[in-house]
Every structure is written in C-alpha cells, then in structure tokens.
C-alpha cells in the first residue's frame, strides 16, 4: 500500500499548487483594486510626486552610473569583436541597438526592482507590521487609495524615463570608449547608428517594454508588501521575494515582448 510519507508529499504538492493559484488570484484582485482606486492619487497629484521622488529621483544615480559603464563595456567588447571583421564603423549600431532594444529596458528594470521595488515592499510591509495600514482603515482612509496607488503610478511613470536615461547614458559611454578613447571614426559612428535605429520600431518599442516592466515590478513589489506576514521575518522574506520574482518576471516578459515586437524583422 501507499507509504505514508509519500502520501504526505503528494498532498504537500497539491497544497502548494492551490496556494500559488490562490495567491495569484488575490494578487490580480489587488491589481484591479489599485487601478480602480487610483482616482484620488491623480486628483491629488502631490501624492504621486512625492513617490516619484523616492522611486525615480533617488534611483537616478545608480541608473546613470551603470548605464555609462554598460555602454563603455559594450563599446570595448563590440570594438574587439567587430575589428576582426574590419567593420569597426558599425560600432555605433551595435551599441545603440543593443541598448535601445534590450539592455536599456531590461537592465534598468532589474536595477529598479532591486533599488525601488525592494524599498516599496519593505515600506509597505513595515507599515502593515506596525499596524499603520489598520490605523488608516480605522480613520476611514483607504490604504490602497492613499498608500498603494500613488506608489504604483510613480513606478509606472518613472520606469520608462529611467530606461531612456539608461540608454542615452549607455550610448554616451559607448561613444566615449569607441570614438574618444579608441578612435573609431565619429561620422560613421553616428550616421550608421542613425540609419539603423528606427524611432518607431526600436525606440518606441523599448519604451513600451520599460512601461510593461515598470507595471510588473511595482505590482509585484506592492503586492508582496501588502501581503507580507506582519513580522520582521515576514517583511524580510517578502522583500527577497520581490527582487527574485520581479527579476524573473522582467526577464520572462522581455522574451515574450521581444518575440512579439521583433518577429517581423
């Protein structure tokens, strides 16, 4: 007959699966509720501006510095590879396309998830643990309307801006290394880049990508914070889960979006 521990294992798997589906449904309801109650944060735009400062402005330094370095590394590596084919002049195309299409949105989103997403989760989780959210409810203030929705919209607004800055800084870094340091011809660097990069196909698609990433990251971060067990351990676990889940979500979504956007090319 069945071994008792095997039976327990199977039951555990089933319990786990049901739990995941349950959480997903709860997260979807949370998302819908956030969208439905975001009217106040637009009427009182001050709330969003405050959160924009914390998620956007404070993430600027890490985004700009890492964008610069990613671009510089791309310039260096790209030059050494392209040189073997005698086509160093295509360095601008390589740097610009890889940044605008992929690296800009994705790396900026990963940095955003670990810089701003984790902070959001920890903040809301602590608010819940110290019963600030419950206190708000007691005062007939909807915590989702007052706390969650402004953070959500601030994340969605700041993500594309940060990704654009990341790409621009990266291209500048590639220019610094390629043209100023190594000495690739400046004219062909820019002109080949301009003829290869399309505004609609490449730049706008990159913006759409970063919008979707911003939506996913802030959703996951806010939900993890809101759903965190109200203990020190629970908040730390939720913060870790935010970074892991949103990074995986960004990479998975990136594959999906890329296959939709660039399949025709």
């Amino acid at each position: 007959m069945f071994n008792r521990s095997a039976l327990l294992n199977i039951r555990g798997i089933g319990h786990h699966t049901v739990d995941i589906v349950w959480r997903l449904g709860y997260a979807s309801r949370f998302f819908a509720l956030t969208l439905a109650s975001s009217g106040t944060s637009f009427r009182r735009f001050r709330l969003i501006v405050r959160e924009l400062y914390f998620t956007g402005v404070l993430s600027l330094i890490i985004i700009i510095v890492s964008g610069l370095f990613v671009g510089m590394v791309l310039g260096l590596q790209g030059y050494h590879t392209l040189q073997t084919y005698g086509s160093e002049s295509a360095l601008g195309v390589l740097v610009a396309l890889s940044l605008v299409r992929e690296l800009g949105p994705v790396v900026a989103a990963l940095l955003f998830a670990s810089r701003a997403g984790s902070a959001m989760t920890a903040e809301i989780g602590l608010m819940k643990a110290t019963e600030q959210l419950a206190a708000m409810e007691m005062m007939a203030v909807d915590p989702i309307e007052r706390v969650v929705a402004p953070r959500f919209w601030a994340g969605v607004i700041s993500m594309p801006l940060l990704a654009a800055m990341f790409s621009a800084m990266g291209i500048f870094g590639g220019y610094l290394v390629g043209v100023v340091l190594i000495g690739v011809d400046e004219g062909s660097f820019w002109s080949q880049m301009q003829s290869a990069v399309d505004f609609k196909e490449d730049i706008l698609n990159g913006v759409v990508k970063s919008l979707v990433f911003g939506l996913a990251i802030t959703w996951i971060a806010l939900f993890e914070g809101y759903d965190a067990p109200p203990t020190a351990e629970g908040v730390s676990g939720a913060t870790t889960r935010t970074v892991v889940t949103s990074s995986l979500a960004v990479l998975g979504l990136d594959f999906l979006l890329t296959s939709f956007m660039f399949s025709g090319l």
Partner: protein
Amino acid sequence: MERSKLDLWVGLFVCAGIGALLILAMKVGNMSSVGIGSEGYTIFANFDNIGGLKPRAPVKSAGVVVGRVTSIGFDNNRFNARVELSLDKQFQFPKDTTASILTSGLLGEQYIGLEAGGDSANLASGETLKLTQSAVVLEKLISQFLYSKAAEGDTAKK
C-alpha cells in the same frame, strides 16, 4: 498647496527623462531623416526575384536615401514579387525610372537603387515601375559560371 524642494527634484527628473527620450529620437534614431514626419508618395515595382530584400530597406538614388520599402508581397497574376516603395515628396522621378535591387558592400544589406530615365512626365502616386532588375542570386551566378566552364571544356575537347 505650496511648492517644495521635492517638486523641483521631480521636475528635474521628468525633464531629464524626456530629454533622454528626445536625444534617443533625434541623435540616435532616424526621426529627423526620411520616413517619419515627411510626406511621402507610394509607387510599386515588380521584381522576378527580390533576393534578401526586407521591408524598411532604403531606396537610394545616386547613393542618396530617397525613401523606404514599405511592404513586399506576391503578385498572383504575374507570379513575381510586388514591392511597395514610399518615396519622399521632395524627390520626383521620371516615368521610365529603372529600379534595381543592389547590395551595399560585399556582405551588406540589400537596397533598391533608382536610376532616372529621360521621360518628361514624373511618376505619380500609385504607379508601377516598368523597368526593374532583380537581385543577383549567388547560386544562379555560380551555376551559370559552371555551365559555361563545362561548355568551354566540351568545345575544347572537340
């Protein structure tokens, strides 16, 4: 409602983000050149073989980009490829212009080269080019070369 230092920083942040987007659009992308923004007109060209031509490939005349390939389809009546070209309004070409598919460099991308003819009337929107030259297919070239070599060998033996 008062203004605070926070607003200034957020304003700077939003300005920097939009500025970065503008830089990407103007300096990196081809927003300022042919294709988007400028008025264009459409002409068609039928080719027996388009080789590796792709949508959005440039259309050049005398090396200058004058338009782009908008779409590539198959003509069911003539059994060849029908290519739709969008040309910039400021470039007008005579009716007997020749379109040929060329390659930039040895391994470069394929583009359409337009060579103006001598007709006094200009191409209008929606017209089809009559004179076209297909892409060079490497396999055909090689097989032609091999056949002619083989034929040479035969005549030399006789």
